[in-house]
């Protein structure tokens, strides 16, 4: 049976709904030994500030039950080096390339977009307004509907490419923030970023992360991510990309059923570097078993 795994986000057509999540996939090429890029929907490259960024002091990682808390702090090479050294190689890959955009200020987000707008080989921008590791106490624009809406609007006006707003789960009302992003002109929404978290060493009574707080990812957060994806997908009219703890195709399909048009696979890449490709393959097997011809038949079909 021919199974059509392709999905259309409106602003971007994907071979299949599986994307590699920003921050867990380096700049993409790190995974060349492990996957065939033409077997996944696309990649979201690690968050880029305008200049290089040092990130947080170590320890930056702590493993928790079914999860991983990270406080990398968006260490990275900056947009110029990325454009010169990485992007030409990404252009040769037969897969969608989404660049995750960061900024210490509204102006910096715009600077990054303006720079990347002059480069070829980028399909969309994912606006990282939700990293919990760069400001004290985990502050980020995605915690507030007004700052979210205003930043999305500026970003949309600054560039020629579609804007995906990546939302934070560390809010009281995710729907309100999602609507603000939609009203600001976002072409799509991706969620969730990591959950603000901490871990303590009982021997020393010190936090296990130098940054004290970090962002929790991995299978432990999947139920929360799924709930938020469902809430947002039913509230907005732009495509939603779901993520949070996806390890298997069944996990990914849950997100599609609650209304996500595509998914991102993150932490799983560290354990099984071929996760994205494997999950896309397993999705096909699932469709075969269920007699589903097009993966889109599953989207938003939750029976309540």
């Amino acid at each position, binding site marked *: 049976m021919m199974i059509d795994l392709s999905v259309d986000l409106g602003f971007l057509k994907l071979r299949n709904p599986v994307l590699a999540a920003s921050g867990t996939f380096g700049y993409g090429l790190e995974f060349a030994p492990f996957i065939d890029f033409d077997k996944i929907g696309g990649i979201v490259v690690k968050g880029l500030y305008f200049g290089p960024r040092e990130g947080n*002091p*170590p320890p*930056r*990682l702590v493993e928790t*039950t*079914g999860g991983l808390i990270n406080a990398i702090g968006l260490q990275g090479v900056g947009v110029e080096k990325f454009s010169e050294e990485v992007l030409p190689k990404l252009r040769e890959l037969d897969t969608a390339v989404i660049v995750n955009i960061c900024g210490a200020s509204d102006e910096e987000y715009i600077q990054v977009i303006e720079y990347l707008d002059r480069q070829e080989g980028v399909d969309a921008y994912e606006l990282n307004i939700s990293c919990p590791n760069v400001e004290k106490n985990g502050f980020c624009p995605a915690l507030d509907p007004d700052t979210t809406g205003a930043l999305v609007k500026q970003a949309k006006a600054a560039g020629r490419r579609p804007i995906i707003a990546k939302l934070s789960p560390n809010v009281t009302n995710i729907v309100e923030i999602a609507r603000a992003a939609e009203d600001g002109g976002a072409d799509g929404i991706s969620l969730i970023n990591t959950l603000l978290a901490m871990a303590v060493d009982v021997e020393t009574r010190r936090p296990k992360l130098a940054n004290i707080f970090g962002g929790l990812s991995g299978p432990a957060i999947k139920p929360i991510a799924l709930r938020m994806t469902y809430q947002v997908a039913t509230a907005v009219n732009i495509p939603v990309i779901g993520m949070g703890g996806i*390890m298997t195709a069944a996990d990914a399909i849950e997100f599609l059923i609650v209304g996500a048009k595509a998914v991102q696979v993150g932490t799983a*890449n*560290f*354990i099984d570097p071929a996760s994205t490709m494997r999950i896309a393959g397993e999705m096909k097997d699932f469709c075969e078993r269920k007699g589903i011809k097009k993966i889109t038949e599953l989207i938003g079909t939750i029976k309540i």
Partner: protein
Amino acid sequence: MQWDSRAKIIFKQNWNDYHLFRIETPKIAVEARPGQFLMVRVSDTPYPLLRRPISIHSRERNALEIFFQVAGQGTALLSRKKEGETLDIIGPLGKEFIPDWEHLGIAYLIGGGRGIAPLYFLGKELKKLGAKVHVLYGGKTLADLPVKEKFKKAGLGMTCSTDDGSFGFHGFVTDLLENEIQKTTPQILFICGPNSMMKKAAELAAAHKIPARISLESMMGCGFGACWGCVKRIKKSDNGKWRKICEDGPVFWAEEIIWEEAE
């Protein structure tokens, strides 16, 4: 770098908390260099979630040996794997121990506790390159020196130390190193062990102007450069940026390391 999801454990041996596995993995074995490591999956479930970085202890034809100490949940699970079972491993990863020198001369290898692991492979390869190898192997007590005999069998000179005097030199392996440096002048040191021991050994190396290669340990998210989780601040290179232990290390020159921040 290769990925072998079906690497078979063909032999295992243990001494209390210390374990040695011989793993059949031809593709990884042929590429492996001393100082490099493997990322080993310890569970099929997400508990624990991450792979564990384990250094390569030896190459035996198309197999690799790992020698590790149970240090937590992950290594405890790994230790319970049985002969005949398969492991999912990625490797070889990281930079190797041996510098690109014409003549290595007299090389001293200093290992503390489980830090001895990569030094066996290193010793054998150095010997092949014509170096005169001497190993200093230290532990808290005799039980922490389980692999001492194999070095001798491989024709590598070895002196042992124990903190409690239960075997060999009574004192720290770094005291032993200090004595040795008085007697002979090594051209190079290779050091792996607890941070306090490596720091002291690095100070001795600096005081006697002997180049030293040091293998740092770190928790890792991926092991192949994608997560940026295993960084330490390393001097000289790139004006002191955080460097990835997995990719830029785990082996560094001693003078590159900022010890206050190496914890």
